[in-house]
């Protein structure tokens, strides 16, 4: 075989005392899709940031097509033929698809070369089946389309190696298939691809070879992912066996939360139209749907961020009057937001502050307007221990924690007050297997204690594993509800596209 497209040799990178990468070797051949696996904090992102020039390695070399190169910034990386699609897109929303592609591309004698750009865009479209309407503003694109634009952007700049950092985390299942087809076609034409993911079934389906990182080191290499079981790979990632939790059969009690004829307006995104649903004690209700079909509005109404235009909501039999976070909390609602970093936590303040934030005015943490720092600290320390939140202590900046630990902290701050019913969106998005398992177990334990849970999610396999019933949202309405016995990925998928209504028998 010819020289690998990219080779990283002995890459070591430390942050203070923490070795984020230690003597990591990795190579990608032309036409190869390499899976990069590892739990949160295993060093995947650091390694890719070294390759893309965001960090300078303490030791180690990077070779492109056999020649050593020095990569100091993203421009160097692009010049070396390395393109990266980050989890968070770097696009200018008000500019069009074509304009975004042309940002930073030198034009002809000071003028932007639109015609040339258009031709190149169409060529890439033909070559890899990645087409986009060139004159549409980015703000009008779906998340999947924005991701496609990021990929096109990398190819536009002549990338020979494409790094994708958890590309499927933001996609609906149908979009994932499209992405995989495009990636396979690119690989078939000689591009190298590094695919970072937590989702083992995706890695097994897509990649040719895998490198597994654990604690910054290469924990193992998988040469035939398709014929390796998920359990084997999970063991490499975590260092121990992972046993999926089981949902015991149970009989739900009375309804703990009901929505009756809820409609909304004045909200970014799809409004709710006459939504009625309920969740009972000892029951987990899933809300499935393609992203953007009203899930955001539903979560906002239930968690008190958006008072509805019409309809009523009850918690434990009491009618909600004001739809304010404080009122809902007082009625016994626990809330975990979809976006941990922007809605859940205050990243620049100590973790303890975020953990007591929703209940700072209660007797537990303050009296007559004076904080009780000892109680706040003790609470945070207790929860850090109980939920095994990995951090230096309660006074560490919340933003320094990994996603899994942040999610545990948010879970802890709600569950410590034993809510009667919990609303949670995308509970394990971006989390590794170990952390996701932990969250699932906590939900099932709540269910066993007779609490109700509403899980809004896009990961159908997760919903099928957790939920007693799954309601599907389509264009702001509940398109139908299936019991766990009737629900399959295929049936849910069909309902998510708006085809076939199924009403649950009461």
């Amino acid at each position, binding site marked *: 075989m010819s020289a690998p497209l990219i080779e990283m040799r002995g890459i070591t990178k430390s942050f203070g005392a923490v070795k984020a990468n230690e003597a990591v070797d990795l190579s990608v051949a032309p036409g190869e899709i390499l899976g990069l696996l590892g739990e949160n904090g295993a060093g995947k992102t650091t390694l890719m940031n070294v390759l893309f020039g965001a960090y300078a390695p303490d030791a180690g070399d990077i070779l492109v097509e056999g020649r050593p190169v020095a990569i100091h910034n993203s421009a160097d990386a692009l010049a070396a033929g390395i393109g990266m699609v980050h989890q968070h897109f770097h696009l200018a929303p008000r500019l069009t698809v074509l304009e975004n592609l042309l940002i930073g591309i030198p034009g002809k004698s000071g003028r932007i070369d639109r015609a040339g750009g258009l031709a190149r865009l169409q060529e890439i479209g033909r070559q890899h089946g990645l087409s986009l309407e060139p004159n549409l503003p980015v703000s009008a694109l779906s998340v999947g389309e924005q991701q496609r634009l990021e990929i096109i952007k990398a190819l536009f700049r002549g990338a020979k190696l494409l790094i994708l950092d958890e590309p499927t985390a933001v996609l609906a299942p149908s979009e994932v298939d499209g992405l995989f087809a495009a990636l396979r076609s690119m690989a078939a034409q000689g591009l190298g691809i590094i695919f970072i993911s937590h989702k083992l079934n995706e890695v097994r389906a897509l990649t040719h070879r895998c490198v597994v990182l654990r604690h910054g080191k290469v924990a193992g290499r998988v040469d035939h992912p398709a014929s390796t079981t998920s359990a084997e790979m999970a063991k490499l990632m975590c260092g121990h066996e992972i046993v999926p939790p089981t949902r015991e059969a149970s009989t739900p009690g009375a309804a703990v939360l009901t929505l009756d004829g809820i409609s909304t307006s004045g909200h970014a995104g799809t409004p709710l139209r006459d939504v009625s649903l309920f969740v009972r004690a000892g029951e987990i209700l899933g809300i499935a749907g393609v992203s953007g079909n009203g899930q955001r509005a539903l979560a906002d109404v239930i968690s008190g961020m958006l008072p509805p235009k019409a309809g009523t909501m009850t918690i434990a039999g009491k009618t909600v009057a004001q739809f304010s976070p*404080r009122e809902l909390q007082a009625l016994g609602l626990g809330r975990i937001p979809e976006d941990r970093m922007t809605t859940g*936590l205050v990243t620049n*303040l100590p973790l303890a502050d975020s953990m007591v934030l929703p209940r*700072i005015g209660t007797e537990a943490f303050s009296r007559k307007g004076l904080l009780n720092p000892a109680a706040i600290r003790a609470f945070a320390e207790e929860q850090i221990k109980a939920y095994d939140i990995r951090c230096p202590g309660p006074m560490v900046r919340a933003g320094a924690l990994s996603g899994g630990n942040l999610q545990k902290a948010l879970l802890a701050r709600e569950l410590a007050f034993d809510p009667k019913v919990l609303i949670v969106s995308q509970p394990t998005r971006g989390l590794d297997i170990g952390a996701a398992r932990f969250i699932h177990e906590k939900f099932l334990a709540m269910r066993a204690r007779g609490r109700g849970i509403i899980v809004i999610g896009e990961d159908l396999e997760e919903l099928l594993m957790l939920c007693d019933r799954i309601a599907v949202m389509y264009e702001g309405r509940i398109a139908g509800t299936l019991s766990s016995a009737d629900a399959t990925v295929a049936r849910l998928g069909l309902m998510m596209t708006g085809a076939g209504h199924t009403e649950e028998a009461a």
Partner: protein
Amino acid sequence: MFRLEARSTTPAWFNLALPLIAIAATLILCSGLIAVAGAGVIEAYGVMLSASLGDSYAITETLVRAAPMIFTGLAVAVAFRAKFWNIGAEGQLLAGAVASCFVGAIPMPGYLAMLLMALVGAAAGALVALVPATLRVKFKVDDVVSSLLLNSVIYYALMALIEGPWKDTFSGYPISPPIEDSANFPVLIEGTRMHLGVVVALIAAPLCWFLIARTTLGFRIRVTGENPEAARYGGINVQRVLISTALLSGALAGLAGVGEVGGVHFQVMSDISPGYGYSGIVVAMLARLNPLGVVPAAIFLAAVMTGAEAMSRATGVPAFLSDVIQGTALLAMLVALLFTAYRIRRVGAQT
């Protein structure tokens, strides 16, 4: 070649080291100007130091000058914590001065007059700060612009007052009538200008620290400033917090004006504040928005101001150097703050 790299943690000693480094850099940069003006750098700084902190009288003079900047520094620090961008401490100070001067001119027992001056002056400052805060909360008007422009409105309103209806009939200058003698703040050290207001300012700093660090309002201010979205999700009424912060900030700036009327000038004139409100921004930034840090930061700027005058007399370097030092200190501090989030790394090979 050097590059900036994001840092995951900020060492605790940075809080103290950064302002000191910024001040050192400022003095080094400004030494060039002193040399250009034809004076010896060491000599000039030496005069500044001895004239501002060299003996007990100099120290009291520096403290008297620091007092209004402690108040405006606290006003800015508290506001910036909530990301309410109050650039209007100058106008709030002037409003506090005018209001307290009105009250102080009414005959009544001295202690009552002083108390009322403080209350009315604080209220006037708070009222002025309420304008940009309300505009922001209700109409999303940029608070930087509105609070800054309001300074000019207040300043010219004050000028109109002291040149017109409120002009002291016994004076040829555009100044207001003086407050009652009984309302003059007591001098604490015989033979100096060290007045009661200075002590109040020194006490206000730890009180503000307590408010920010140990009360639920302070908690809400901090959280609202760092992440209003998470604050709202957590049940905090973000708009109410912004209004409360503005009232508090304006009241503190108003007290700066009260101290100048009751303890230093005993009346209102056009130059009652040589930009103490704007200096408050420098003070708050040097203090890294920590109310306890406001005191040393204000004393530093006050020492520069008193020292610059003496230096000017002794060496001929214009006293305007103190303004240059202030501005440079702010810029140096802003640059220094970069290093709380980033580190410099040497990159070996050339590209």
